[in-house]
């Protein structure tokens, strides 16, 4: 370490636990926090603690929110018979930015992964099953990522929810809109070709 101080070492270690932060970035952030005016550090730690204290999981959709139920779940202009299942709050945020989706969400906060000790219980899937059973849900759109775990989770949801009479669909994967074909990787292109539609 560049500074001989256990406190600085602890700060670097704390930054390193954040996603996308390696050793170099952690050191840079720590040194910046220490050399900038003191109110930067105070403001940062207050903002973190305050947000952490105010934000909780919505009791309906498990998305992060200050109010329970969250803004989306409380909005009666939205279609509450369509649920989009996402792995993480970032997925719901991305779909909201698109503005085209008028249904509601369910946030798993993960995917089924025995290697990480994550099963249906940790993902709150029983709560989703209960919603489908009790609220006359028409469609569940599974928007988990196109990884082995994301696909397995999608299939697991389909196995649980289809017998309850809901239509379970999977979002399409393929070439980005406005992106040239030459920028798509081979595997994505292959997938897009397989999922082609008749004009």
């Amino acid at each position, binding site marked *: 370490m560049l500074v001989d101080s256990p406190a600085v070492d602890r700060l670097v270690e704390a930054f390193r636990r954040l996603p996308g932060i390696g050793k170099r970035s952690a050191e840079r952030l720590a040194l910046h926090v220490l050399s900038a005016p003191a109110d930067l550090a105070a403001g940062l730690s207050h903002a973190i603690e305050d947000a952490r204290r105010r934000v909780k999981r919505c009791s309906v959709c498990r998305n992060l929110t200050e109010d329970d139920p969250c803004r989306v779940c409380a909005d009666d202009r939205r279609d509450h018979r369509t649920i989009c299942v996402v792995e993480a709050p970032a997925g719901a945020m991305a779909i909201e930015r698109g503005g085209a989706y008028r249904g509601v969400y369910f946030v798993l906060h993960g995917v*089924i*992964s*025995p*290697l990480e000790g994550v*099963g*249906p219980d940790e993902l709150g899937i029983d709560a989703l099953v209960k919603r489908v059973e009790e609220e006359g849900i028409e469609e569940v759109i599974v928007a988990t990522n196109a*990884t*082995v*775990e994301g*696909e*397995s989770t999608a*299939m*697991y949801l389909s*196995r*649980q929810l289809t017998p309850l009479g809901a239509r379970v669909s999977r979002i399409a994967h393929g070439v980005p809109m406005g992106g040239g074909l030459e920028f798509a*990787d*081979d*595997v994505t292109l*292959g997938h897009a070709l397989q999922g082609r539609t008749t004009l």
Partner: protein
Amino acid sequence: MSMTCNGFRGLAPTEFRPGPGVNVIRGGNAQGKTSLLEALLYLVTSKSHRTNSEADLMQYGQRGFQIRAAFQRNDREVRIEANWWDNAKRFKVNDVAQTRISDILGKVHLVFFSPEDVDLVRGSAAQRRRFLDMEISQIAPAYLHALQQYRQALRQRNELLRRPPVDPVQLDVWDAQLAAHGETVQAERDGFVNQLNTWAADVYSRIADGEPLRLRYRPDIRAGATFTDVLRNARGSDLRQGVTTRGPHRDEVEIEVAERDARRFGSQGQQRTAALALKFAELELIRARCDEYPLLLLDDVLSELDADRSQRMFGALNGAVQVILTTTDLTDHDGLYGADCTFFRIQEGRLDTD
């Protein structure tokens, strides 16, 4: 092709300009013959066949090494530079730094044969699967993707099996993932082994004076069986053993020589010739894909073969292939290497034309 290297293994600062056709590097043991081939292999694949640690490749007392070479590929020049300095690895292709080292794969193709490659024939099924996986991944990116997904699904399913009580619905879900990717893996392996068989059988019979060789893909889940049915039938034993017992991770490639299993019944000579035939078949596979033969590096291959087989091996080699071979044999063999042949000698790491 021309290559220079500095600080690599026991090699003196070297400039190597092989001719077209066969290049024979002659020298005693431990003079640097294999290191010269290893430098080329490392430059083109970023890997050595002898070690995973670059520190081992560095000359004693040095802080790094550098290898550069220029290759003619389909009338285009490809220059590659490898730098190892202060524990960091840097590659440049035509002077452009490569951010992902894996991007250098496929810029220049080469096929390397060393005496240890007899393990392809003599060794375990896992070694033959590794050979298939490496070769097919280079040809078909979709294969590598399917293989990685298959392996990940397999790890997940095995973990699930290890933690009873096991939810049968979750097992179904992983079975479906294994089937989706496993079927792709099997189909690609099947096509590849058939293609390899055609060429390997031809080369083998030419070197072994008419003796037949045959490669057969033996998928653990036989053609015609339904993948998920096989997994379902094996579920009881999977649960008892806590591991997935069926699937492409148990595949085998049978190598038959003179209609007998070469692994169990082949002589040393048959096993070595079969391994060599696989590598020669790889030359043809790469040519079929890239319209050009790769560079062929043969490390100490002549000590493995008798005089007749050596002679026929060079006869089986297409004249368009540029070959670099090492040998401890210092005698001049009249015409063994063919007319288009350049000799080098290496002694205490110093390379000279001979």
